[in-house]
Every structure is written in structure tokens, then in C-alpha cells.
């Protein structure tokens, strides 16, 4: 895991460091443990102290060309070899190659009696001999406190311990000394921290809600900056991994590239036609709202484009998801076969949150996907602060890698769960899936609560789970608001009837008008004809009158002429 690239750079250069080779720990230590000085690792039984020491030695021998010596006061060499074989450490081979020397120190109180002064020169001789045998640069003393059990906690032992630490420094070896954690307020049971002042690391193993989480803290590191938080770590087949919280999480480079959601309708609702690449999308909804299907469509589209994806499932087995998706016409199996898609599924209760997070990041760093789906994050149980911090780190880690992530979250049907509200600030886009109950049916509505950095639709859109996946339905927005399901259908039907009715009424009125217009026009023609007749008659009679007048005039003139002439 390349966590070094997210850790701040060390401020100092003079202090030489010996890398532990443990994922994440070197980032917290800004390089490693102080070279040539002793480091104390304190923790309760079962915290992994011995494994830390051994990993330090094995990595030193195999990766950093620094042979090592393990002086074990608790476990015999053969037992150690068997115990760590499951982690892939072959101690016997390292011993054979002279890269590692193991000296088991057995102290049996019942066989020891004291008579007069003594020193621990035997221990020094053995350690010196082992160091010379392999040319060791690293030494682990696990657990030195066994000396107190075997020899008693007397002034001789204390004086010799002080001498031992000076001697280790003189030999120039980088030493790790493990110690049992003491009671309240005490770092170690026998006060070993008094002798080791250069670097102190505390390990812890807490059980919360029946799930164990291991944590690590650098308590002191003289002359060096170091991460100060309590960092979770885990031990599994891959050895020890420490996962530092990335405080530098807001410094990631951002992208303007767009990743389609896999559903055309959602792309249209998002102003830019999809999610921003490298953004985090939260999809919250009650059960049965199609969260997994929408996630699968997102992945389907990504794989189709040739982008690698990981589907982290915490509720269903991959085969079950694949089968269920086939019923809505989404075939993810072909992407699994082509190697574009990887399913990772685990019961949430299997590990603590930290374990899940580390396993996820490990898988992500191996597979290098551009798309990640986590279905659902609500499956993670734990204290709210722990869930939050885990998700915060997950989101940060994905953003740093430029991975577009879709998180689904199961919420109660009608309220926005508190978890969701807290998560919201981590997410760039938040899609709410909603059951709309009305008129005796449940319909599904989808809306965008937010989408940072892009304009987006404010509508609640109804969607259907079809045999081609999720499809958004054109919104019906009438005088009575948004209608869904059969209410929408009946509203649409009655609307269509009303339109038909209106169309028919208009046609009838048109016909009536047309016939009235025709009648009126016929009437106008009749009247005009009558008028014309009348006008003709009038003219005829006028002409007759003139003729009569003229005739009369002519008669009068004739009469006058006759009279005048007469």
C-alpha cells in the first residue's frame, strides 16, 4: 500500500531511520524507527508485539539488507517459526541464510537460586555472539520483562538493564524491546520506558460491540516528527498493516471529467451528464428501492467503457447479486469473466471496521479500479464516531486515488437517517430514493439532494424497475403536484379524455358555426338578390316615369305650340 505519498514529508533529515517495512507504519514514523537506537513497543498480551518485532526483523533481512537477531524470552524458536509460517515468513530459511539469528532465553524461576553478586554478562555474551554471527543491524528483545520474572526485580537486574540499553546503542543496532503494558497510567508493567527514551510505541487491543480492533500509537519519538493519532492496524495473512488517517485528504487533485451514472434519466438530471470523476456519490433509500440495481448499472456502464470496477457487497453473496441482476436485465457476470469487475463480499460482522477498511484498500490498491461501489455502508455497525471516521478515511483514500465511488445506504422509509445526515458532508452527490405511498400503492421516486459543482434538477422523478434496469419516467406535474404510478396513469388518462372532449366540442362548435355561416351567407345572397330585383324594378319604374314625364312634356309643348301657333 503506498501510503507514503499521502503522508507529510519529514521535516528533519539528520536522524537516520530504519524502515519497518510495515504498511503505513513507516508513514506514521516518517521513515521508520530511529537507526542505532532502542525502541520500546508496549502492549497488553495478544496485541501483536512479537509479530511487530518479527516483521521488523524479517523485512530488515529480506528487503533492506539488514540482518537481525531475535532474542525471545517467551517463545521457543521452533514455536515462533511455526506461528509466523502462516504469514509467509520462513524463519528457518532466513536462519539458514544467516540473515536471522534466533536465541531463545529460558528462565525458570524454580531452578534458580542466588548466592552472592552477579551480573547479566551471559545475556550480553549471547546477544553479542548472535549479532556477530549474522552481522546484525537489528535486534529484537521479546519480552525483556521475563528477566524480572526469572531473576526478580532487584537492583542488579535494573542496573544491568540500564547497561544493556547503553550497550545496544554502542553496538549501533536498531533495537526493538517489547514490554507488557502496565496498569492504569503506566506504560509498561515494570517501567522499562525509564530506560528507552528514543522511541515508544503503544499497542492496544480493544473490544467494542464484540468486535476487536487493534490500535497503535507513537507515544514518543525523540528528535523526529511523528503521527500522533491512534492508528488502527490489523494482522492477517499479509502480516501487519497500519492504516493512518489521511489528514492530507483534501489536497487531492480534482477532475472535470464526467462519469455517466449508467441511467440516462439520472445523467439528464445531473447538469453535466453524470458524476464528476473521483467524486463520492451517496445513494440512500429504504429497502427495495433498487439501490443495488442502480449501483450495478453504474458498474455495467463503466465496464462497458473499459473501466475497472470493484463491487464491495456487505449484504449479499456475489452469486446472489448476479442472479438478481439478471432478472432486471443486467448481466455483470460477463464483466467478471472479462476481468473488468471484481466482487468482494464479506459479512460486516466478520471483522471490525478497521479490518474492513484495510482489506478494501488493499484490494483497491491491487486491482486499481476507477469505479468502486460499496453496498451498503449502513451495514457497518459500530459507534457513530468510529463508523464516521472509517468512512471519512475510505472516502479520502478513494479521492486521493481519483476513484469514483458510489455508496449505498439503507435508511428508514420516510426519514433521512441521522447517519445519512452526518455522511452527507463527505459526499459530493447525494441521490435519495424514496417510496411514495399514495392511493394504496408504493411507487418509487428519485431525487437529487445535492450535487456539488453542477446545476441539477430539483424534481422528484418516478422510476421503474424494468427488465432493462432502472428507467426514469417523464415527470407528471399537474395542478395537484407530482403524480406517480397509477395515479399518474389515471391522471394521464383523464387528461387524454378531457383533451378528446375538448377537441370534440371544438369540432362541433366549428361545424355549427360553419353551418350558421353557410346559412347566413345563403341569406345574404337571397337578400342581395331581392335587393337587386328591387333595384331593377326601381330603375325600370324610374325609366317609365321619365318617359311619361317626357311624353307629358312633349304633349304640353305640342299643346302650347298649337295654342301659340293658333
Amino acid at each position, binding site marked *: 500500500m503506498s501510503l507514503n505519498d499521502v503522508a507529510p514529508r519529514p521535516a528533519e533529515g539528520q536522524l537516520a531511520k530504519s524502515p519497518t517495512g510495515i504498511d503505513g507504519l513507516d508513514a506514521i514514523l516518517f521513515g521508520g524507527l530511529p537507526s542505532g537506537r532502542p525502541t520500546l513497543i508496549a502492549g497488553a498480551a495478544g496485541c501483536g508485539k512479537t509479530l511487530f518485532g518479527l516483521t521488523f526483523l524479517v523485512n530488515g533481512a529480506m528487503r533492506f539488507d539488514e540482518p537481525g537477531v531475535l532474542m525471545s524470552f517467551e517463545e521457543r524458536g521452533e514455536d515462533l517459526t511455526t506461528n509466523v509460517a502462516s504469514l509467509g515468513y520462513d524463519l528457518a530459511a532466513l536462519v539458514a541464510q544467516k540473515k536471522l539469528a534466533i536465541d531463545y532465553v529460558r528462565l525458570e524461576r524454580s531452578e534458580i537460586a542466588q*548466592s552472592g553478586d552477579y551480573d547479566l554478562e*551471559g545475556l550480553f*555474551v*549471547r546477544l553479542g555472539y548472535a549479532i556477530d554471527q549474522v552481522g546484525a543491524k537489528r535486534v529484537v528483545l521479546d519480552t525483556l520483562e521475563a528477566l524480572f520474572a*526469572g531473576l526478580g526485580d532487584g537492583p542488579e537486574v535494573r542496573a544491568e538493564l540500564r547497561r544493556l540499553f547503553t550497550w545496544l546503542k554502542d553496538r549501533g543496532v536498531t533495537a526493538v524491546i517489547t514490554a507488557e503494558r502496565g496498569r492504569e497510567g503506566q506504560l509498561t508493567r515494570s517501567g522499562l520506558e525509564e530506560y528507552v527514551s528514543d522511541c515508544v510505541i503503544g499497542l492496544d487491543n480493544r473490544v467494542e460491540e464484540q468486535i476487536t480492533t487493534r490500535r497503535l500509537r507513537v507515544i514518543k519519538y525523540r528528535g523526529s516528527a511523528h503521527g500522533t493519532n491512534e492508528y488502527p492496524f490489523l494482522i492477517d495473512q499479509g502480516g501487519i498493516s497500519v492504516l493512518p488517517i489521511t489528514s492530507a485528504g483534501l489536497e487531492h487533485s480534482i477532475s472535470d471529467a464526467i462519469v455517466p451514472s449508467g441511467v440516462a434519466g439520472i445523467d439528464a438530471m445531473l447538469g453535466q451528464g453524470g458524476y464528476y470523476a473521483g467524486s463520492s456519490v451517496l445513494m440512500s433509500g429504504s429497502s427495495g428501492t433498487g439501490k443495488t440495481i442502480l449501483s450495478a448499472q453504474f458498474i455495467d456502464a463503466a465496464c462497458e467503457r473499459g473501466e475497472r470496477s470493484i463491487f464491495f457487497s456487505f449484504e449479499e453473496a456475489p452469486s446472489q447479486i448476479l442472479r438478481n441482476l439478471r432478472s432486471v436485465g443486467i448481466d455483470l457476470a460477463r464483466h467478471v469473466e472479462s476481468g473488468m469487475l471484481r466482487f468482494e463480499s464479506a459479512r460486516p460482522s466478520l471483522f471490525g471496521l478497521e479490518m474492513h477498511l484495510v482489506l478494501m484498500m488493499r484490494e483497491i490498491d491491487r486491482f486499481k479500479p476507477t469505479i468502486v461501489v460499496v453496498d451498503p455502508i449502513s451495514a457497518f455497525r459500530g459507534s457513530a464516531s468510529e463508523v464516521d471516521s472509517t468512512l471519512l478515511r475510505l472516502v479520502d483514500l478513494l479521492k486521493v486515488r481519483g476513484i469514483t465511488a458510489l455508496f449505498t445506504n439503507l435508511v428508514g422509509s420516510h426519514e433521512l437517517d441521522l447517519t445519512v445526515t452526518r455522511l452527507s458532508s463527505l459526499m459530493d452527490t447525494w441521490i435519495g430514493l424514496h417510496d411514495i405511498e399514495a392511493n394504496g400503492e408504493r411507487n418509487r421516486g428519485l431525487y437529487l439532494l445535492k450535487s456539488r459543482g453542477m446545476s441539477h434538477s430539483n424534481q422528484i422523478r418516478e422510476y421503474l424497475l424494468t427488465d432493462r434496469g432502472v428507467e426514469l419516467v417523464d415527470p407528471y406535474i399537474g395542478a395537484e403536484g407530482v403524480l406517480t404510478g397509477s395515479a399518474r396513469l389515471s391522471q394521464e388518462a383523464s387528461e387524454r379524455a378531457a383533451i378528446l372532449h375538448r377537441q370534440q366540442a371544438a369540432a362541433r362548435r366549428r361545424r355549427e358555426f360553419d353551418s350558421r355561416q353557410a346559412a347566413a351567407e345563403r341569406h345574404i345572397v337571397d337578400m342581395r338578390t331581392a335587393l337587386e330585383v328591387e333595384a331593377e324594378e326601381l330603375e325600370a319604374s324610374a325609366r317609365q316615369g321619365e318617359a311619361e314625364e317626357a311624353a307629358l312634356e312633349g304633349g304640353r309643348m305640342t299643346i302650347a305650340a298649337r295654342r301659340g301657333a293658333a
Partner: protein
Amino acid sequence: MSDAPDADAGPKYVLRLYITGTTPRSLRAIANLRQILSTQPSELFDLQVIDIYQQPEAASEHQIIAAPTLVKLFPEPVRRIIGDLSDNARVLRGLEIEPRSAEAVVGEPDLE
């Protein structure tokens, strides 16, 4: 084990004293042990003095931590007496040397 004596003829005690060179403490331990054993018949003991500075591998082989250390390998159980052996009584107790032989030296005058 080559240290183990024959059941009949060999010495009754197999002892190893691990010392560190010629440090005063080592020399004192040798002197004290000689003095303690001188009260016993010498054929009872198979004693070897081993300098772990000379034979460092012996320290780890025989689980030596403190110096000086006197180890009673035989008879079982194994006992380790650490220190310069200046406390005679403790050494004898530690070696579990039979009380009769011890009393033969210390207790006889009282009986008379």
C-alpha cells in the same frame, strides 16, 4: 549426554561453572566453589569451569544469562545458582547436597 555419569562408578554430581574471563566476580566464584567442595569427597564431583568469553556459544547452549552461574546438571532436577557463590549455605541448599554429608561435616560435633 556426555555429561551424564555412569550409574555406578561415576561421580554423584555433575557441575558446570560458567564465568566471564578473569573478572573479580568470576575469580571469587571459583574460589568460593572450591572452598565449598573441599568439605566433600572430591570424587563425588565432576566439575568444569567454562569461560563464556572464550566459548560464547556455550552460553546460549546452556541457557546462561547471569554470570557467574553454577549449574547442577546431575542429579535431576537441574539447578542454577547465580552469583559469586559467597553464601555457602545457599549453594549447598541449591545443589541439594544430601543433608547427611552436610551434617557429617557441620553436625557431628554437636552429637558428641
